[in-house]
């Protein structure tokens, strides 16, 4: 699924239908259901895939916006039903093009027309569709001409005649009657709507039963929620922050969906045998630097002024750098190391802990950790805050971390972003140390938390916070690449 399609439809029509992949890999046609727009996994072989998906999504959206009527199939022969579909397709596209004329350029290249001496009904239908989308196109066939005259009021094709469903149904009957007169064959079972970007038009008719299984299949996608409340009492003393979560299927934020409980990490025994004490790094205090003898500044540098005056009075050229000003000492980098302490890290936690100490950090840094137990209980522990020294009790707290529960990554990243965004710094980054993919007890869709984390990374970028990830598991790199992009690196446990 092309992720740009969703913002595309939102900006075109202010609609946000759920875009779904059709699970059947050989399917080539889109269709609409009450759940949303179902698109094939791949575009047909002979077309540019990017344009095809845009064309398919824009056509489906035109139905969602303009096809309000459900036609009654009773008394309509299959030929007429196919014609109702073709005319309705043309009508919604014509209405869409009136607002967005560029859509005609998008759709037209897919209308390849075969001109033969003995055209089949399907050939004629394609030629009619071509004529109705592009009124300047001329087709000599009398049946196509008739269809065109029924569809438009005027010769130039600027006024639509078929404004009401009854008029459209009547025009389809007239054209269908002519097809019967021409003794043309039509096999409704093998018929596919042309061109390929158009959906199968099942949405124009009252819902039939064979779509019901699709609904069932999609409805099992979890949205979390049932397992809420389990871990709430544990964290009652903690600071509670709520964050929205991104639901990739809707696709929208679920406001206030996750609760993060922020606590200082519990103190640990500093004489623990697991502890390795690195060199204690004192953090430099934030300083401003006074720059003397500058070309520009807020105040005079008195010594320089006196020297310059003496030079000028003596008739010499003077050095006019006579100002002083204060500036921050260095561009500062602030780092927040976020350690994943979910149950799956049990074997690798020592590696993550020593990585947290070994990673090169310039400027202030913090070490925090997280794990989760459903959306209401994301536990966030602060081992070391930005202004704390990295001393023995702090390292003891770090080594005292233990693996438990699950990984609700998005909420933890949002909280870390919230904390680091408050820091004044030239470069702010959150560095996630993890063993692999996110997972939580109330989420069953493997892509849900990844999509949410990806959204959290984007939100962070908007507040000028860079999120990077060091991952221990080679297997997880492929899916995490979509979340962190270039910020993802593989961490070999053996190098620590």
């Amino acid at each position, binding site marked *: 699924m092309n992720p*740009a399609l*969703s*913002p595309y439809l939102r900006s075109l029509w202010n609609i946000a239908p759920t875009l779904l992949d059709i699970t059947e890999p050989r399917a080539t046609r889109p269709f609409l259901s009450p759940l949303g727009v179902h698109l094939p996994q791949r575009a047909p072989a002979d077309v540019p895939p990017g344009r095809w998906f845009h064309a398919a999504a824009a056509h489906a959206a035109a139905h969602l916006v303009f096809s309000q009527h459900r036609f009654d199939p009773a008394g309509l022969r299959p030929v007429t039903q196919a014609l109702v579909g073709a005319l309705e397709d043309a009508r919604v596209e014509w209405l869409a093009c009136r607002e*967005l004329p*560029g859509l005609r*350029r998008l759709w037209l290249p897919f209308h390849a027309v075969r001109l033969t001496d003995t055209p089949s009904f399907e050939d004629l239908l394609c030629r009619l569709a071509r004529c109705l989308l592009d009124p300047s196109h001329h087709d000599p066939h009398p049946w196509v001409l008739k269809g065109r005259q029924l569809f438009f009021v005027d010769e130039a094709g600027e006024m639509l005649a078929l404004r009401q469903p009854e008029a459209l149904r009547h025009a389809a009957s007239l054209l269908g009657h002519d097809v019967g007169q021409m003794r043309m064959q039509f096999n409704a079972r093998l018929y596919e709507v042309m061109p390929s970007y158009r959906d199968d038009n099942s949405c124009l008719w009252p819902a039939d039963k064979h779509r019901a299984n699709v609904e069932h299949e999609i409805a099992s996608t979890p949205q979390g929620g049932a397992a809420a409340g389990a871990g709430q009492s544990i964290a009652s003393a903690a600071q509670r922050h709520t964050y929205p979560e991104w639901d990739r299927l809707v696709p929208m934020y679920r406001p206030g969906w996750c609760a993060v409980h922020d606590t200082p990490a519990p103190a640990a025994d500093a004489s623990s045998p697991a502890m390795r004490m690195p060199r204690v790094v004192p953090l430099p205090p934030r300083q401003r630097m006074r720059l003397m003898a500058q070309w520009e500044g807020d105040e*005079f540098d008195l010594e320089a002024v006196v020297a310059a005056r003496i030079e000028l009075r003596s008739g010499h050229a003077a050095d*006019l750098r006579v100002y002083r000003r204060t500036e921050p000492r260095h561009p500062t980098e602030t780092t927040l190391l976020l350690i994943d302490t979910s149950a799956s890290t049990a074997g690798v936690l020592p590696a993550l802990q020593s990585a947290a100490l070994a990673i090169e950090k310039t400027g202030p840094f913090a070490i925090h950790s997280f794990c989760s137990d459903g959306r209401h209980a994301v536990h966030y522990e602060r081992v070391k805050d930005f202004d704390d020294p990295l001393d023995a009790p702090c390292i003891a707290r770090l080594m005292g971390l233990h693996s438990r529960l699950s990984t609700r990554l998005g909420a933890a990243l949002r909280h870390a972003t919230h904390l680091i*965004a408050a820091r004044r710094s030239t470069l702010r980054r959150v560095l996630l140390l993890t063993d692999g993919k996110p997972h939580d007890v109330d989420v069953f869709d493997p892509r849900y938390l990844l999509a949410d984390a990806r959204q959290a990374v*984007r939100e962070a970028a908007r507040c000028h916070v860079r999120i990077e990830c060091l991952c221990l598991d080679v297997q997880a790199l492929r899916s995490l690449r979509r979340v962190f992009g270039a910020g993802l690196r593989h961490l070999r446990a053996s190098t620590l």
Partner: protein
Amino acid sequence: MGSLMDIHADAHALASEPYYHPAADECMLFEAAYAQRLPVLLKGPTGCGKTRFIEHMAWRLKRPLITVACNDDTSAADLTGRWLLDATGTRWQDGPLTLAARSGAICYLDELVEARADTMVVMHPLTDTRRMLPLDKRNELVQAHPDFLLVASYNPGGHKELKASTRQRFCTLTFGYPATEIEVAIVSHEAGLDMETAARLVALGVRTRRLQGHGLDEGASTRMLVHAGRLIREGVPPIAACRIAVAAPLSDDAEVSAALQATVDASF
């Protein structure tokens, strides 16, 4: 800042009427605030007409307008003034705020929130009943001219916020994107385009604003649409004009950019 030339307030008088299309009663409200000499804060997204509004009001009230574009290097001395050295000795140079306060101009601090914290403190005495500006470096207390007014602008979408102690000194006029018909008229007038093309540009602008909160922090501003319109007037095909003036500047995110580009393609 800190130009060696002497600045005169008269140089800031507006020569001709700046075009402004009122969206509601903001002109009347501003005139009332000016009559009472109450400082005004103009709040709204980028490119929605805040600066043009103040230019228009300065022209209507026949006051010179001194504009300072604030950035994170703007310090108190940049606004109030500083000592300079010339051939004869040291010389005090008024900053734009002092100049406006002495001469009775409107001082417009654009994007006030970007300025350094010390600038907020300097202007506080000017914004209450004292109406004075202490120049400690010169040991002078400037009493503001009766016609002086302080106006600031502020874009609340950014990542910085104004402190309550500053924000509560101002009357605040909130600006948004104009209603569609008004925006069409503005784009048509500013870019010199026919209404039909202007309406297409504004429709595109409205479409991009739907992505606000869904990948974009702010949609296309009226200013952006005017820029696109001026490129079209210059003979650039509309799709190319909107690509460089609207779609590309709005986002660096690959997906959002692709969606915006496809929307531009669909719009013309």
